[in-house]
C-alpha cells in the first residue's frame, strides 16, 4: 500500500465511516439541505438547528463512500456549538486543506485527517459534499430568536450538488 493511500484512509476516517456520529434526522431542524454528487450517486442530507445564532445541533443522513461519510460525521462534530459564520469560515479552511491550496492543518483540529485527500483530486468532491449541503442548510436556517420558539419548521429542501 502506498503512503498516499494510508494517508487517505487514516484510522479516524475508517472509524467514522463504520460508525458515523450524529447520523440521524433532527425533527425540529431549523434548516436542512440535500447534497448530491451526480458522478457517483452519493447523497447526503444535512440538518441544522440554529438557536439564537448558534448551531446547537447538526446531523446528517445519506449514503456514500467512506470519505464522504467520514467527512459528514466529523463535520457535524466540528461545527456543533459554533456560530453560522464560524462554521462557514471553517468550511473555507477545510476546502483549502482538501483542494490543496495550502490551509494550515493544525488550525483544523480533527479535520486535519482529511489532508490526504489532496493527493486524490477525484475524491475532493466526496470530502466536501456534506459541507456544501451544510452551507445550503444554513442559508435555509434563520436563527431562532428564542430557543424555545415553537413555530412550525418550514423545512425547505435545498439542493447542493457538489461541483
Amino acid at each position, binding site marked *: *500500500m*502506498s503512503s*498516499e*493511500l494510508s494517508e*487517505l*484512509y487514516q484510522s479516524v476516517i*475508517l472509524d467514522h465511516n463504520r460508525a458515523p456520529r450524529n447520523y440521524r434526522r433532527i425533527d425540529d431542524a431549523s434548516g436542512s439541505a440535500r447534497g448530491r454528487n451526480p*458522478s*457517483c*450517486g*452519493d*447523497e447526503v442530507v444535512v440538518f441544522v438547528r440554529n438557536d439564537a445564532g448558534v448551531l446547537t445541533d447538526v446531523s446528517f443522513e445519506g*449514503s*456514500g*463512500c*467512506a*470519505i464522504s461519510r467520514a467527512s459528514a460525521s466529523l463535520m457535524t462534530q466540528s461545527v456543533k456549538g459554533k456560530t453560522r459564520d464560524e462554521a462557514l469560515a471553517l468550511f473555507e479552511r477545510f476546502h483549502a486543506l482538501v483542494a490543496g491550496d495550502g490551509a494550515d492543518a493544525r488550525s483544523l483540529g480533527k479535520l486535519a485527517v482529511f489532508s490526504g485527500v489532496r493527493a*486524490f483530486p*477525484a*475524491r475532493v468532491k*466526496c470530502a466536501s459534499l456534506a459541507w456544501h449541503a451544510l452551507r445550503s442548510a444554513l442559508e435555509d436556517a434563520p436563527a431562532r430568536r428564542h430557543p424555545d420558539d415553537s413555530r412550525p419548521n418550514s423545512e425547505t429542501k435545498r439542493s447542493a450538488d457538489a461541483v
Partner: protein
Amino acid sequence: MTTAAHTLQAMPPLRALDLTAVRADFPLLADRAGGRALVYLDNAATSQKPRVVIDAVRTFYEHGNANVHRGVYRLSESASAAYEHTRVQIASFIGARTAREVVFTRGTTEAINLVAQSYARPRLAPGDEILITAMEHHSNIVPWQLVCGQTGAVLRVAPVTDAGELDVAGFEALLGERTRLVALTQVSNALGTINPVTALVAAAHARGVPVLVDAAQSAPHLPLDVQALGCDFLACSSHKMFGPTGVGILYGREALLDAMPPWQGGGDMIDTVTFEESTWADLPAKFEAGTPNISGVIGLGAAVHYLESLDRGALAAHEDALLKHATDLVSRIAGVRIVGTAPEKIAVVSFVADWAHPHDLATVLDDGGICVRAGHHCAQPLMRRLGVPATTRASFAFYNTLDEVDALADALASAHRMLA
C-alpha cells in the same frame, strides 16, 4: 458488398492468439509510469490503441495532411482517398450493402442524436411511442427524451429482470400500434448483458417498426453484421474498438438515409447553395457537414484492419475465459455480489461489496495499478432498477490476461482487509 464473415474468410492467414505478441502491439500496456505494471480493466469506457493506429494518425499528419473532398491537388486527393477507404472498410466490416450507408459522426452519441433529429423528429406525432430498454446508456435515453419533448411523443421502457437481462415478453408487450421506433443496446455497458438483438429486431419488424441498435459495447467483442441483425440503424464508436477518440459510425439503410433531411448544415454537405435555398449533397456527405475528423477516421481504418488480422474467434474464446475466471474469483470474496448475471455476457464484471463503496474500492485498486470504473456507468435508471447506487466495474479486452484477473482478486482481498 460482402458480409463481415465473408470478409474474414478473404483475409490473409490469421494470427493465432499469442497474448504476449498482442500485448506488445499496445504501447500503453507496457507503460511503467509510477514504477508498476498497469492493469487496465476499464475497456468498456475506452480501449487502448495498438501501435498501428497511433502510427496511422501520426503518419497522416506527417505526410498526408490536407482537407478532404475539396482540393484538386494530389495531397488533398490522397487524403480524400484514405478517408473514403475507411468508409469502404467499415461497410465491409459491418456488412453494409454499400459505403453510402456508412456515415461518420463524432461518436455513438452523435449518431443516435442524428437519427433522433433527422429520422424520428419529422415522423413523430403526439402520442406516438419510442421504445427503449431499462438497460440503456444515457446516450440512448436522453436523445429520445429530447425528441419526445419536441414532438409530444412518449418514451416507453422495456423492463429488465433482477439478473440484468431484458424481459423479452415485456419488450414485445410494449411494441404497440403507436410504436414508431425501437432503440436498444446490443450489450449493456454497465453489466455486459448481451441482448438477443436478431430476435428483437424481427419482433419489431413484424409490427413494421424500425430498429436502431447501439453497438458501442458490442463492436469490440462480437462480430458485427447488420444483415444478420436485420437492424435499420446501428451506431458505434471508434474509441471503444481500438481506434482514436472523436469518431463514430452510423449505419443506416440507404432508403432510410436517403429520405432523411440533413441534421447539421455547413460545408461539404451541400450540392448548390444560394441565399434563397440550398440543395443537399448525396449520401453520405449529406450527413457530414464541416471538416470531419480525418485523422481519426484514418486511425479507425487502421484499427479495423488490425482487428481483421486477428482470429476473432480465438479472441472471443479468450475473453470468455477471462469472464469465467473473473466471475469465479470476484464472487468468492466475502460480502461481494456480482450485479448482472445473465448467461450471455461479454467480459464485464460489475459488482458491489457490502463493506465498501465503489469509489473507495476504485481508489484502493488504483493504488495497486488496477484501473476500474466506479459509479453509475451513465446508466442511472438501470442502477435504480437494480437497487444499487453504483457499482465497481471491471471490463476486459482481448489483451487482458488471466494473471491480471488474479491481480484484481488479490487487490480486492487486500481492500477487504483494509476497509471491511
